[in-house]
């Protein structure tokens, strides 16, 4: 204790002496930061390193900012500027580093009068290392698990035969009705699975609805025509329709030429379908999938020929047109629910219950976050309680929900 005290006295003496010596010459630099240590940033892709140092003796005081530098692997011995931190901050995360390189770092202090201190330098080289898990995505991982878990749970729940209460969706009863009417009138049914490829979930959902429509049509012995705008969708749609005819017990009525490719071009496709609709006058039109501008062309043409039209899409921009021009429209999530409803299988209905759990998470997240932020604002961010609320809300936003 005593020796340490003497040390300090001694150091103070030397410093004051230096001060005296330097008087009249250049103004001396601020106190250097001390003990710079570098460590790998945890749970990352292997691109970041965390730095930590002891604050300069002039902080708080005359320190304007700390400057951080990294060594330049291409040019040994020289350093590249990375960034600045405010006074009072003693840590910094360096990003965009290369896993294959080793680095040194240095930190200097700049004071209010523009003097730079001696640097604090790391003594050993370090390179960032890559972890097996991306820590930033941990909350997402948990939320995914909860969501998938609840869907799976309700599917099993339904499979075990316990009843599920699910509300009605207006557009869905219309499917059977439309197919029936087409049969009565002796006209065909047009099914359009959107204009996107198989790498779009909406197309897959549309194909699922197609399997149901084709099955009912096969039972009634009605003709279903499926022009597609993608080769892969044609392939998948053929498999589906064929299977539906088989399930309905009429494999001999399946005609693969009714599921055909037109063109990948959106407006070339719609030019064809529009002409075809006017000439063949299908009695029922289904638009189930991802749609863009062609939605209104299809729906208005269908309206002109007096067809029953049922649409389902998750393209928010096209919903207004379907809502305005079709008899029934499945809006967004309802469209995805349709395949579950139409299949009539209990385990499919279970998945809807799982989706509702997701909605509860949404509502809870929003309500908690809003509550915290509002309280924080009312109490006032200048009080410690208010700050605590706002920090909690920010944590929710920037850590859990990213």
């Amino acid at each position: 204790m005593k020796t340490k005290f003497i040390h300090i006295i001694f150091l103070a003496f030397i410093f004051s002496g230096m001060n005296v010596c330097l008087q009249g010459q250049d103004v001396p630099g601020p106190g250097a930061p001390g003990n710079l240590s570098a460590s790998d940033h945890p749970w990352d892709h292997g691109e970041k390193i965390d730095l930590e140092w002891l604050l300069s003796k002039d902080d708080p005081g005359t320190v304007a900012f700390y400057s951080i530098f990294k060594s330049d692997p291409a040019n040994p011995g020289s350093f590249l500027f990375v960034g600045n931190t405010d006074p009072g901050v003693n840590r910094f995360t360096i990003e965009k580093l290369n896993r294959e390189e080793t680095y040194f770092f240095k930190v200097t202090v700049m004071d209010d009068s523009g003097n730079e201190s001696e640097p604090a330098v790391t003594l050993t080289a370090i390179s960032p290392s890559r972890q097996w898990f991306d820590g930033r995505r941990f909350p997402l991982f948990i939320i995914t698990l909860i969501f998938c878990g609840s869907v799976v749970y309700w599917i099993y729940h339904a499979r075990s035969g316990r009843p599920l209460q699910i509300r009605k969706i207006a557009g869905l009863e219309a499917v059977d009705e439309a197919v029936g009417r087409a049969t009565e009138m002796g006209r065909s049914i047009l099914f359009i699975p959107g204009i996107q490829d198989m790498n779009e979930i909406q197309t897959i959902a549309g194909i699922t609805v197609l399997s149901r429509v084709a099955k009912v049509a096969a039972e009634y012995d009605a003709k279903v025509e499926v022009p597609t705008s993608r080769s892969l969708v044609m392939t998948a749609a053929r498999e589906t329709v064929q299977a539906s005819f088989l399930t309905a017990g009429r494999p001999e009525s399946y005609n693969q030429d009714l599921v055909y490719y037109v063109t990948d071009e959106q407006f070339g496709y719609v030019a064809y379908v529009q002409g075809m609709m006017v000439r063949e006058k299908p009695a029922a039109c289904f638009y189930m999938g991802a749609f863009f501008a062609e939605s209104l062309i299809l729906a208005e043409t269908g309206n002109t020929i007096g067809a029953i039209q049922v649409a389902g899409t998750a393209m928010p921009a096209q919903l207004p047109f379907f809502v305005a021009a079709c008899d029934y429209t499945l809006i967004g999530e309802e469209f995805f629910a349709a395949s579950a409803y139409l299949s009539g299988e209990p385990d499919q209905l279970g998945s809807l219950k799982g989706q509702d759990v997701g909605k509860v998470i949404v509502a809870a997240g929003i309500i908690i976050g809003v509550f915290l932020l509002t309280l924080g604002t009312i109490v006032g961010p200048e009080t410690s309680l208010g700050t605590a609320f706002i920090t909690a809300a920010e944590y929710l936003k920037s850590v859990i929900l990213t």
Partner: protein
Amino acid sequence: MYEFLKDLDKRWIFLLMFLSVTIPIYIIAKTGKSFPEVPTVLSEAVFQAVEDLDEGDPVLLSFDFDPASEGELGPMATAFVRHCAEKKVKMYFMALWPVGPQMIDDAIARVIHSDFSHLVYGMDYVNMGFKPGNEGVIKVIVTDMRELYTTDDIGTSIDDIPMMKDIENVQDFELVINVSAGYAGTKEWVQYASTPYPDKIKIVAGCTGVQAPLLYPYIPNQLPGLLGAIKGAAEYEKLVVDKYGGDNPDPKYLEAKRRMGPQLVAHLLIILLIILANYIYFVERKRGVSV
């Protein structure tokens, strides 16, 4: 009136629509007069974002549209390129749509070749062309440009292009300007570029009228400025022309403003149609016709 309207053939409406677009176009082109524009906040924000750039700053322009939407987006592309050229920034063009490079070439021919012919390809502007993969492209180039872009649109190696020397990834650009007609476009740029790197990537965009409502949820944090459809283009045109146009601006820089004429008349026609439709509806309800 009611009897006439009730069974009105659709084709009369079509004809009215055609006339309400054609006549204003003809008159405006003949007289050279068009309606005034008052820029809104969002257009001002776009203008300011470009205005804040310094000479020589790198700017990425992603033209994600096709000829089908050129009517709405072409004037925006023209105005953006011109504004960038006036600010003397370095322009890097790219496209997420297969026909995007064609739109880029058109804009370059329209603005750079004719009015800024001193700009040198490879030094002041470069067309990096189209890459397939939609948002996948964005995800890759935000951290590494060269993984996908090894050559420019005409096949010159990236390493032989002087202005590519300092560009490692999208974060190195001072501003990203996106002109988009749908997927992949502004929404993907916001989701995969400015959302993960809020401090490093700043995006302003011009989009079609269909897309605009879907982008409002991202304003202003993830997307500071947005030009919505032809009106946005007309407002931005006005800002650019007011500052750089001189007294007698080239008509190509006022294309959107001109096109607001048919817009106004056609909008009024649709409003009129909605009113007439409801007139029919109320008469029918009064008479007890089941509808």
